[in-house]
């Protein structure tokens, strides 16, 4: 009853959402540990039930935010890279026959994915990547994030989008050839 695409997108969005949350938590704790930032855990800090990490002053908060947001962006980038590599090299429609044979011999054919699965994954990871860029840019405007991080994030996201666009273009050409042929 629910459109297949929407169900698939929901399915694919769970892991990236969890990855970003875990990356944020990990980034925050690593920043606190390595930078020796004083903090306290405030129970019921947000949403009236979840704890929040409180920093004593704005400078500490800004430093922790920068590193934790960077960790979150790296997690989004890592996910996007995995999907893009899979789309380019392990795409069922245009995988190199030698590579396919090698994967078959190593019993790793599960790495090969079809377009439906890959492009839904790619859309979700790129949405998360661009939203992370938007989050970083907003933080920069509000003065909590260093501008360099936002600029680099934007460039990375733009490049990844371009790489996916190339793969989509290749896919369209293959579909055209198979239709005309």
């Amino acid at each position, binding site marked *: 009853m629910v459109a297949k695409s929407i169900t698939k997108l*929901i399915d694919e969005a769970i892991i990236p959402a969890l990855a970003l949350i875990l990356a944020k938590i990990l980034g925050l704790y690593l920043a606190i540990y390595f930078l020796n930032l004083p903090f306290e855990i405030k129970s019921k800090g947000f949403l009236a039930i979840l704890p929040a*990490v409180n920093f004593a002053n704005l400078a500490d908060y800004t430093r922790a935010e920068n590193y934790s947001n960077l960790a*979150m962006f790296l997690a989004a980038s890592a996910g996007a890279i995995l999907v893009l590599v899979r789309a380019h090299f392990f795409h069922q429609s245009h995988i190199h026959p030698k590579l396919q044979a090698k994967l078959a011999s190593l019993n790793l054919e599960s790495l090969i994915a079809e377009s439906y699965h890959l492009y839904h994954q790619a859309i979700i990871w790129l949405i998360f990547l661009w939203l992370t860029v938007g989050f970083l840019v907003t933080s920069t405007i509000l003065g909590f994030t260093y501008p360099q991080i936002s600029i680099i994030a934007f460039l990375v996201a733009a490049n990844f989008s371009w790489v996916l666009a190339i793969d989509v273009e290749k896919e369209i050409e293959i579909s055209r050839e198979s239709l005309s042929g």
Partner: protein
Amino acid sequence: MKHHPLLKICLNFSAVILLLALIITPFYFAKNFSQVAGVKSQSPYLVVSQVEKFPGMTLTQDAASFQISFTKQGASQAYLGVLIVNNPTNEPKKYSLQESSTNNNVFFGEDLQNQLTQISMPPQTSVPVSILSSDSPFLSQTVQFTIQSQ
């Protein structure tokens, strides 16, 4: 098995809402998980001095107690807007002036016909404080008053 179109629409709409919630959740979490400790106490009012506009006028402040000294040019003289009182909070506040001198009136606003010693201020607004020095043979005057908030 035929499905009611309205049911299909509702389910798809709910699915989209769920997807949007899944996408927004990490960023909402990222924004709110770490915070700066809030200011423990907030001042009920802020005072901005304007005494430098009046030659020979000086201001001394000790907590909520203010002392303004000035030299009059005439028997009865008004000094309008010597201080500005701000309500920096997010709720309406009532302020009152208690003065200890007899020859001088301290009041909110700049209307000599309506000398208010109590005022209710909306949030994020300000009101001037003025002095009316009535008939007094002494040219040098000192007025002491306190600002209370309720």
